[in-house]
């Protein structure tokens, strides 16, 4: 960037830079689809294997017309959100419990380590049998993916809380609940949001794997069905929609993150009369 002469120019430069980046990002996306279409049309790529954007778009329109696309999206998003919320909040609550009972943590540590190392998708068939071959089963798979890692990472973040602040609270005779809500949780807001961001991806893996195994609806179902009948346009459409929704969910958390970070700077300075 050029060296700005004054603040106005600095802002102008910044805005120009931002527009430049966003336009290039869109350009890359557009070029990707354009080349895909072209390469299929000149028979460089096999349409049977990769389908092509125009066909996917036509399919997309027909799914919108029949309204079934929204059902699929709704089902998958719902399963993922429930999985994300249960997995993250339960994980956080357990981590808080462990933080206040070091003995319990020491007892459970090897089990947590094993459960964390285990590929949770391997458990998916069992979980579905236990919880039922319906939405409950899929949600449980989704929960299983984010739960353990949430416990382990929240716990280690809690451990890193500034000891001096905890000492201050102890000098003030604060009880555990006060220490938790006034120091440990507030000082870990950014960390909890970072965990949540990771959990969005994990919950989606759980949902899609669950839907692969048992489902009548959902994006995972579309992918599975499309693959089985060699409808690659259907699979590609599923993947593109999935990418879009996952991106939107991730961005939502980023926006929450930013709003928390900027809240205090927006805060209006009220001056107490002298």
């Amino acid at each position, binding site marked *: 960037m050029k060296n700005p002469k004054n603040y106005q120019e600095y802002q102008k430069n910044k805005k120009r830079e931002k527009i430049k980046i966003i336009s290039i990002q869109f350009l890359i996306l557009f070029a990707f689809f354009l080349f895909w279409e072209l390469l299929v049309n000149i028979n460089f790529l096999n349409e049977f294997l990769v389908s092509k954007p125009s066909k996917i778009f036509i399919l997309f329109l027909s799914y919108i017309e029949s309204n079934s696309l929204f059902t699929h999206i709704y089902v998958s998003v719902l399963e993922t959100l429930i999985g994300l919320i249960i997995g993250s909040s339960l994980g956080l609550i357990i981590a808080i419990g462990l933080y206040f009972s070091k003995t319990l943590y020491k007892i459970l540590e090897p089990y947590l380590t094993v459960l964390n190392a285990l590929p949770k998708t391997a458990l998916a068939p069992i979980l579905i049998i236990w919880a039922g071959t319906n939405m409950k089963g899929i949600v449980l798979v989704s929960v299983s993916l984010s739960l353990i890692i949430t416990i382990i990472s929240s716990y280690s973040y809690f451990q890193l809380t500034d000891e001096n602040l905890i*000492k201050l609270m102890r*000098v*003030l005779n604060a009880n555990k609940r006060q220490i938790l809500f*006034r*120091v440990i949780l*507030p000082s870990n807001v950014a960390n909890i949001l970072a965990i949540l961001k990771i959990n969005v991806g994990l919950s989606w893996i759980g949902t899609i794997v669950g839907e692969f195994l048992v489902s009548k609806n959902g994006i995972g179902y579309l992918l599975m069905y499309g693959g089985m009948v060699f409808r690659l346009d259907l699979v590609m459409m599923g993947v593109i929609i999935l990418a879009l929704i996952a991106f939107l969910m991730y961005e939502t958390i980023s926006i929450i993150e930013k709003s928390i970070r900027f809240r*205090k700077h927006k*805060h*209006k300075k009220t001056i107490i009369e002298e």
Partner: protein
Amino acid sequence: MKELLSLNNVEKTFFSDEGETKVIDNLSFKVFENEVVSLIGPSGCGKSTILNLIAKLENLNKGNIITNCEIGYMFQKDNLLPWLTVYKNIMLGLEIKKRKSKESEDYTFSLLKKYGLSKFASYYPEELSGGMRQRVSLIRTLSLKPKLLLLDEPFSALDSQTRLFVQEDVKSIILEEKLSSLLVTHDISEAIALSERVLILSPRPLKIKKELKLSYDNSLLPSLRRKDNSFSQYFNDVFNTLHY
């Protein structure tokens, strides 16, 4: 003179996998109303442990500690919560102790005004200088109306110039609010500039090597004490006791 704090034959031992370490051995001293007492000793001799014992953060093994008043604790770091405004930070102690009332709030406001911080009440700690943050931290402690202040090397995190200003500040606040204070430090000039009595401590296990009564009037501020001829005499005295 009223006795605010008395330690009688206090003993403290720490246990670890490496064995036991006796940190404090048969320690006795008193702090009276309107005096500042300094504990000075080599690093790692267990000075801070004494304050932790008085504040009941740790239990002692033998002896007893008698406190006759509300105690305030001020740390090396300002320990302001970065997500709270200056005002909220100051109210923290009152809120936790469930002593927040119209009266206590008014008192806090009056402290803020008196010590020139009311303009900054809605600022966040990161927007203040190190010296001001330490002052906020002190007002948080004062809002609980303590009679005895425990100061755990409260100036050592500040740069050398700010340190002089904050020492002056703290001493005048102590005088203004008619407080007593127990100051833990390893800085000889700080101990002489601020206190009326200096207790010179030995390395582990901690014992009192020598008690030095300073002849200054207790209202004499640090800057004036530093100009006094006796200052360097006291400095040498403490230095020699510490090291030989």
